[in-house]
């Protein structure tokens, strides 16, 4: 069970430290490297979204890694709960690090924003709004922007990917002399690991990943599949021992043979204590002087 939940843990528990470390480092290394290459959207429980022709086999292979792929089965259910929806109205103050762009007027390049957003719920002329500030840098220069208005959307809390999309309008007159009417900041705030690990990505997210990563995304899948399949070997070894024996078979066979020749009978059953074999010492003969 331990060998399934954490690759190598079963061997470590059995005292087979070197093998435990080999399994742990090799299998988990491959698995998490694959996860990193696929931006954390490689292992997911909704098998209908797996690549065509592969179907549910993708998750079955990844399941071999046990404790690190099992959450995907539960995260899928959490993500489908009715309460998991995008936020258009804030009910409590919201502060988070932000990275994204200031959406530009037509025909110009977007400016890069990095900083912190602080938003509070507010009551506008036509209903609930948000009001707040962005503190950070705009293309490397310090800037403070006034945020607000009805244009606000925060992505679902539970979703694949470490970034949670945030879009918020800018208040007129904010900034440094630029016309900000109709403009907004668009970017991401961090999503916790608990709310992103193993969650099934949207088809659009998978499409984006394939576009941006290309072959790397498929390699990431292959890494996680192989890691899962390798752990089946490790589990087998943990339960039944190594396929070609423990390496001491020659010694046991030789001992059995020597006992048979000496007429000492078969060796004692496993687990019983036995006197160590000592070379017989010939008695010293006293020679008369």
């Amino acid at each position, binding site marked *: 069970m331990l060998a399934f939940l954490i690759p190598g843990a079963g061997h470590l528990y059995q005292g087979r430290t*070197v*093998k435990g470390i080999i399994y742990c480092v090799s299998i988990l290394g491959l698995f998490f490297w694959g996860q990193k290459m696929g931006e954390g959207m490689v292992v997911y429980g909704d098998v209908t979204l797996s690549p065509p022709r592969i179907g549910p086999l993708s998750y079955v292979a990844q399941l071999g890694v046990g404790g690190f792929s099992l959450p995907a089965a539960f995260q899928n259910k959490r993500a489908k709960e009715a309460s998991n929806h995008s936020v258009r109205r804030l009910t409590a103050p919201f502060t988070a690090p932000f990275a994204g762009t200031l959406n530009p007027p037509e025909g110009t390049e977007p400016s890069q924003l990095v900083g912190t957003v602080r938003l509070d719920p507010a009551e506008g002329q036509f209903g609930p709004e948000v009001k707040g500030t962005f503190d950070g840098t705009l293309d490397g220069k310090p800037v403070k922007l006034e945020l607000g208005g009805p244009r606000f959307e925060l992505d679902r809390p539970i979703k694949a990917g470490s970034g949670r999309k945030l879009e918020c309008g800018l208040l007129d007159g904010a900034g440094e002399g630029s016309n900000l009417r109709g403009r907004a900041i668009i970017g991401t705030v961090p999503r916790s690991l608990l709310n992103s690990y193993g969650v099934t990505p949207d088809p659009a997210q998978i499409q984006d990943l394939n576009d941006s990563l290309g072959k*790397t995304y498929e390699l990431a899948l292959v*890494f996680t599949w192989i890691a899962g399949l390798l752990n089946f070997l*490790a589990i087998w070894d943990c339960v039944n021992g*190594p396929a070609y024996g423990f390496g001491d078979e020659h010694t046991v066979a030789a001992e059995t043979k020597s006992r048979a020749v000496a007429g000492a009978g078969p060796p004692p059953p496993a687990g019983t204590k036995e006197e160590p074999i000592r070379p017989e010492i010939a008695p010293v003969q006293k020679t008369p002087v």
Partner: protein
Amino acid sequence: MFDSLLLAQANVTWYMVPLAMAISLVYSASRYELPEYILQRAFRLFLQIVGFMCVAFAILWVLTYGL
């Protein structure tokens, strides 16, 4: 063509090395118990895998020569 093919695939091809290392280590560890045996056999298996991939690459290169 050989150079351009290698360069184009360089990033992806290098992933083969750690992948082969991990597979060799885990496979050998599941066959043997003694660490020195495991490392010896893993090294041999790693060389076999890389050698096989090189042969496959060479065959594909020859087959696509001039295309």
